[in-house]
């Protein structure tokens, strides 16, 4: 039981991380190769807060706020550069984060921060809390997609110039996407830190950013269910199969390439495709009648 609980907790935290990137990349179409940095900001913020005596629950909004603030600053760069350039800029953010944190004594430098306080709810209680947050975030994501904000994100993701010619304040919507996505990344980071009780700069490096990116892309950018599924599978497999953990980058990289080449819509695209074929073959049968 112990093992399943810790597994579910890890899966839940991964899903929150992936859903947070999905808001930026999936909903609003803004590429980010440095998402783990925002998860890291949340992790460091809440760890330092709880270590200095702030209750865990209060440290969560703190983590989200700081991550969100830095997210908005990075979001401003998305107003200046697009596509490949934004990819490179956000990659820079990732290296900047590890680079800066490594050199800060207060943040534990290379050694990181250990003995992060336990929220004191027991393993099961913590898992329930994480799963609860997953459910809330999933519902929020599905709601967001249906709202007029989600409708507008679709337009911005597809074609910014056309969006502005029909009256969309593209810059504000992009900043909102970054603000929301990085705030929830901060939440994922805080949950991660208080689960493993130890963090160091490498926990939030470029590889982790690519891992989150893989979850979103393989799930099907924008599809809430696809991303949840992909995040669950991709976070469980390395725990079940040691060799996947050893060759994480190789496995994720290969999966990423396969998806990009053969099904850019990811899992959700494959499911939609299968549904379409099913309907078509039914119609074909009717036509034959």
């Amino acid at each position, binding site marked *: 039981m112990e093992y399943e609980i810790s597994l579910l907790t890890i899966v839940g935290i991964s899903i929150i991380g992936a859903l947070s990137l999905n808001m930026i990349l999936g909903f609003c179409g803004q590429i980010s190769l440095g998402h783990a940095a925002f998860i890291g900001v949340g992790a460091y913020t809440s760890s330092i807060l709880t270590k200095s005596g702030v209750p865990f629950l209060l440290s969560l909004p703190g983590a989200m706020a700081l991550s969100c603030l830095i997210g908005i600053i990075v979001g401003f760069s998305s107003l200046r550069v697009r596509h490949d350039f934004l990819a490179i800029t956000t990659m820079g953010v990732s290296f900047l984060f590890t680079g800066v944190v490594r050199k800060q004594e207060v943040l534990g430098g290379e050694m990181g921060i250990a003995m992060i306080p336990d929220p004191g709810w027991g393993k099961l209680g913590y898992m329930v809390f994480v799963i609860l947050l997953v459910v809330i975030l999933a519902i929020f994501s599905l709601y967001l997609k249906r709202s007029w904000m989600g409708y507008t994100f*679709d337009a911005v993701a597809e074609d910014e110039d056309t969006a502005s010619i029909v*009256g969309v304040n593209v810059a504000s919507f992009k900043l909102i996407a970054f603000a929301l996505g990085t705030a929830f990344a901060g939440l994922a980071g805080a949950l991660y830190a208080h689960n493993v009780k130890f963090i160091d700069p490498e926990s939030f490096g470029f590889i982790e950013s690519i891992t989150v990116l893989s979850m979103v892309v393989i799930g099907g950018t924008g599809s809430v269910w696809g991303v949840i599924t992909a995040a669950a599978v991709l976070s469980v497999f390395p725990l079940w199969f040691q060799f996947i953990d050893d060759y994480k980058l190789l496995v994720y990289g290969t999966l990423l390439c396969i998806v990009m080449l053969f099904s850019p819509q990811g899992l959700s695209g494959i499911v939609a495709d299968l549904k379409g074929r099913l309907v078509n073959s039914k119609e074909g049968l009717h036509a034959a009648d």
Partner: protein
Amino acid sequence: MLQINDITVDFGGVRAVDQVSFVLKKGELLGLIGPNGAGKTTLMRVITGSVTPSLGTVRLEDRILNKLPSYQRIRLGIGLSQQIVSPFRSMTVLENVAFVAGYHKTKNPIASLFKVNRSPENEEAKRLLNMVGIEEVASSSPSNLPLGYLKRLELARALALKPKLLLLDEPLAGLNQVEAVQLSDTLWELNRKGQTIILIEHNLSEVIRICHRLVVIDNGRKIGEGEPHMVMNDADVQSAYLG
């Protein structure tokens, strides 16, 4: 209503628009014509803010637009139907129009999160698609539609903004003669009900049939302006068209 003052546009070394000025009165249907490459589309893009002029001002009612970003100009009451169509391909035809019809719901970006209902916008979109005659493709994806349909989608989307000023860049392109006459009738009818329109069009017979007044540009310069038949008989205009 609209005042174009000494607008000049340079692309690198090429002067695409050269000191063009004209005014547009409320309720007018103005034809903007000229040979290929004359600078008509560029002038439209100056009005909507996607091209920055090196000289000159654009004034809508009492406001100088020059410093405003595109989306703000649109929200002041300009609707543009582009020469090069750009439907949102991830949306259906209906969703394209309904999205724009909800422009008041997306005005405040943060408040847009708390709005979900799309039915009034869907109804308005159906009405507009019906008006431009493409209601039968409402639930199709724009990706598989011929140009004539996409042009009318572009027009419906511009109308969804309920603009004070409607800018139309070759709305009749891709339509056959019957469809073109039908759509010009629709435009004429809109104008009769008070819609101010600038119409760029190569289909001169329709332009002459429905416009009150023409502005002719050639090589970036204004070479004629006035009542359609008079303008078309002008020697400069004729030589520009005949080359």
